[in-house]
């Protein structure tokens, strides 16, 4: 299955590993039950082919039916306990010293905020979560518009983001790597293109990334870049997007302060290359029909300057 970066059967975190163990327990139990019942059915039919096989006495049949029912009940109770025990174990993940992140679902992208008691140290990004390996992570989940669901199968099951409510998911990544997540609650036109990446790295690499994200956007260093920034600040971009360090402060689209560090555009729809960025800004509706980002009608020159400027937002 590809690189299995979005698979419940390739757990790379403790929560997903627990679920995966439970899955295999249930899988093998189910297999045994299925085979047993089909064997019983086959034998039942097979006996009918022999001419001497008569109807079993009602008492014998009743005994077998009762026994089979009793075995089923015991098996089911066993599975119930296994399920509850797994749920309990998952709830026991300590959130002490946990990294606090807030994820807000929008149609059709994810806003990601790294919480900090000092407001100026908070960091907002989009469609990408960098997390340290081995440290519990507590993600609070909110929805801006409709219901979405946060799901990274390699790390944990899904939890919904519901307007008017706040949910919490706690997880821990045990192996560095890039994992893919995707919205799992149907949320409208572009539900299919609402993915995100979790980049799990060692804690010093993570801290470096976080520190870099806290810096505002660098000022433009050439006339072309200056005109690119001008497009952002005077054109339509700033109505929805924020770039810290500039006057762009819109709240309806992804924060672009460090957009050039991200690996995808439009919530995992296309890779973040200059060409893709150009065609995305030029005609977003072609790449992701229905996206809330409108075609902006920029001239070729403006577009070029804008893309050049955005490339500097590292």
């Amino acid at each position: 299955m590809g690189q299995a970066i979005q698979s419940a059967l390739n757990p790379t975190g403790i929560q997903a590993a627990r679920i995966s163990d439970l899955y295999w327990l249930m899988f093998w139990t189910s297999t045994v039950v299925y085979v047993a019942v089909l064997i019983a059915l086959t034998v039942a039919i097979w006996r009918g082919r022999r001419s001497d096989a008569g109807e079993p006495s009602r008492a014998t049949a009743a005994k077998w039916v009762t026994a089979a029912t009793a075995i089923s009940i015991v098996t089911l109770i066993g599975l119930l306990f296994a399920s509850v025990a797994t749920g309990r174990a998952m709830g026991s993940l300590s959130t002490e010293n946990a990294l606090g992140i807030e994820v807000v679902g929008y149609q059709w992208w994810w806003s990601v905020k790294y919480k900090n008691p000092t407001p100026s140290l908070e960091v907002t990004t989009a469609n990408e979560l960098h997390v340290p390996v081995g440290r519990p992570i507590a993600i609070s989940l909110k929805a801006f518009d409709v219901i979405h669901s946060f799901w990274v199968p390699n790390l944990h099951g899904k939890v919904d983001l519901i307007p008017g409510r706040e949910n919490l998911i706690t997880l821990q990544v045990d192996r560095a790597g890039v994992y893919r997540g995707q919205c799992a609650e149907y949320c409208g036109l572009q539900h299919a293109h609402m993915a995100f990446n979790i980049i799990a790295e060692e804690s010093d690499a993570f801290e470096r990334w976080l520190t870099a994200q806290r810096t505002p956007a660098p000022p433009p260093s050439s006339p072309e870049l200056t005109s690119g920034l001008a497009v952002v600040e005077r054109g339509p971009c700033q109505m929805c997007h924020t770039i810290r360090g500039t006057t762009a402060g819109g709240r309806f689209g992804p924060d672009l302060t460090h957009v050039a560090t991200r690996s995808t555009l439009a919530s995992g729809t296309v890779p973040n290359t200059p060409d893709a960025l150009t065609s995305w800004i030029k005609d977003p509706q072609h790449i992701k029909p229905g996206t809330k980002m409108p075609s902006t009608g920029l001239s070729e020159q403006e577009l070029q300057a804008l893309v050049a400027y955005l490339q500097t937002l590292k």
Partner: protein
Amino acid sequence: MSAETDQLAATWQDPPGLLGWFSAVDHKTIGIRFIVTAFGFFILGGLEAATMRLQLARPDNGLIGPDLYNQIFTMHGTTMMFLFAVPLVLAFGVYFVPLMVGARAMALPRLLAFGYWIYLFGGIFLYVMFALNIGPDQGWFSYVPLAGPEYGIGKRADVWAQLITFTEVSGLIVAICLVTTIFKLRAPGMSLNRIPLFVWSELVTSFMVIFAMPSVMIASTTLILDRLVGTHFYNPADGGDPILWQHLFWFFGHPEVYIIFLPAQGIMSMLLSTFSHRPVFGHQALMLSLTATAFIGFGVWVHHMFATGLPQLGISFFTAASIMIVIPTGVQIFCWIATLWGARIRYDTPMLYALAFFVIFIIGGLTGVMLASVPLDLQVHDTFFVVAHLHYVLIGGSVFPLLGGFHYWFPKMTGRMLSERLGKIAFALLFIGFNLTFFPQHVLGLHGMPRRVYTYPENMGWGTLNLLASTGAVTMFIALCIYLANVIISRRSGAIAGENPWDAPTLEWTTSSPPPAYNFSPLPTVTGTDPVWEHTDEVPIVVGVASECREVLVTHVMDAEPDHKKEWPEPSIWPLWTALVITGLFIGSIFTPWAVVVGAIPATFAMVGWFWPKRGQSPEALIRRLEAGDHPPLEQVL
């Protein structure tokens, strides 16, 4: 034909001509209409499914865009649940329950006719809207706020909500007709514990309909109110709650699954008994299992909401209930295996469908246990694993027995046999195609593919299994075409069936194929669960029920002792008029709340026409007749 049966035929026949066609109230006529219409919607729903499978056959496919895809999957779910499965399981009841309980007619015949029209008009309404690009696109579950006033733009969500009103009205009506028929019109001697299992399953299902449907009617009505007159039931900013919708919807939605499933269980019992030529083992255990499933079925709805962040302790109870519901189903399967144990089985096509049930449904049942587990559900919820599960349960557990049941009862309905050759080819292709389509979807779900996505990127590695599933869907499509061709061909030129071609045990096989308008003459009585096989020579018959007017014998609920005779309503055009007026009212109320007020006026006139009393039936005359000793015939009457 004797003079008696001539008279009966004249009394009970639906009137001739076009007007007569629209006035029909015979439960067999209405039943056939229901069955044909439901299969028509099955074809439409199947075409939608095939379109989706074509779109998903390869990654980044551009065959259809998101807007159409979202409409199509919503239409597929809505059609299959509301316009195919529920109407069809009830339709078999409409046709066969009166025959299986030995009744002359169905209770509340005009209401039944109205129920059919309202169902038909609702379905047509949905598809006209779809053709106009106003088809619902928010999923068959219509979660708010996506379906609410702010995000559900246009009239699409209203179309869905109002379709629900149509089908629920129809479903409730049929359920009430069935309950009344089963409780009050059974042949003398058919005490509750001698009811054929199919009839019992229809009874239990009807009660489930009566308790489950009001919940979704409240849900869809409040949704329309939110959208049309600005109430705030589901608006969190004003104290409403999107979770309320999910509770209301799934309190209906999960019992709905059992509404579709239980009648199929009834059919399973009939098929296994007939083709092994034995009474079903554990008749009462099976009755209790059906009943237990119905009760527990109302206590599992939250397992659709495990990911919404409800409190752990609370949802554990729903895990327990969802696991518990496996037990009665298990008991049924064990009883059926005991029935088959050492029996000389005839492998006619209906029996093949019944045997396929075991192979397919049990997989669905076992994945159901997995979905009952909260942690595991969090992984596979809303993925293709669930798509696989629900199709294993609903197609394996319900559609296969229903197709088998249709094969089994086709001779009774038409007088001709379906071709076994074509039947077996269709069965084999359907069995293979089904597993090819849905088994890979378990794997896809575990490997992270969510449901309701119109496309997926190539590097996810989901392409091969999706292509396999799409190949399976094409196979299923071919299989169903052959099934349909078989029906069309055999309807004209199939072998003549005779009264009881399968040597089946229940009462519907004691009358001619197709049955006469009056069902039976003389009216039967029964002494056990399998009347045809009991070979008792001295079974009493019912006499003294008038043949020159539509007189029906009403019996007691528990032991079916004769209670009184009652004259049944004549055919009438008014149910059709009422349905047309109500249809206008329902559709109008998508656009303005005043439609309810304005529409009530013609609705009142239509009802007046419907209930206009007949001449010559004064209460005094009735009292005189009763005083003259004109009471029911059998001795049990006190």
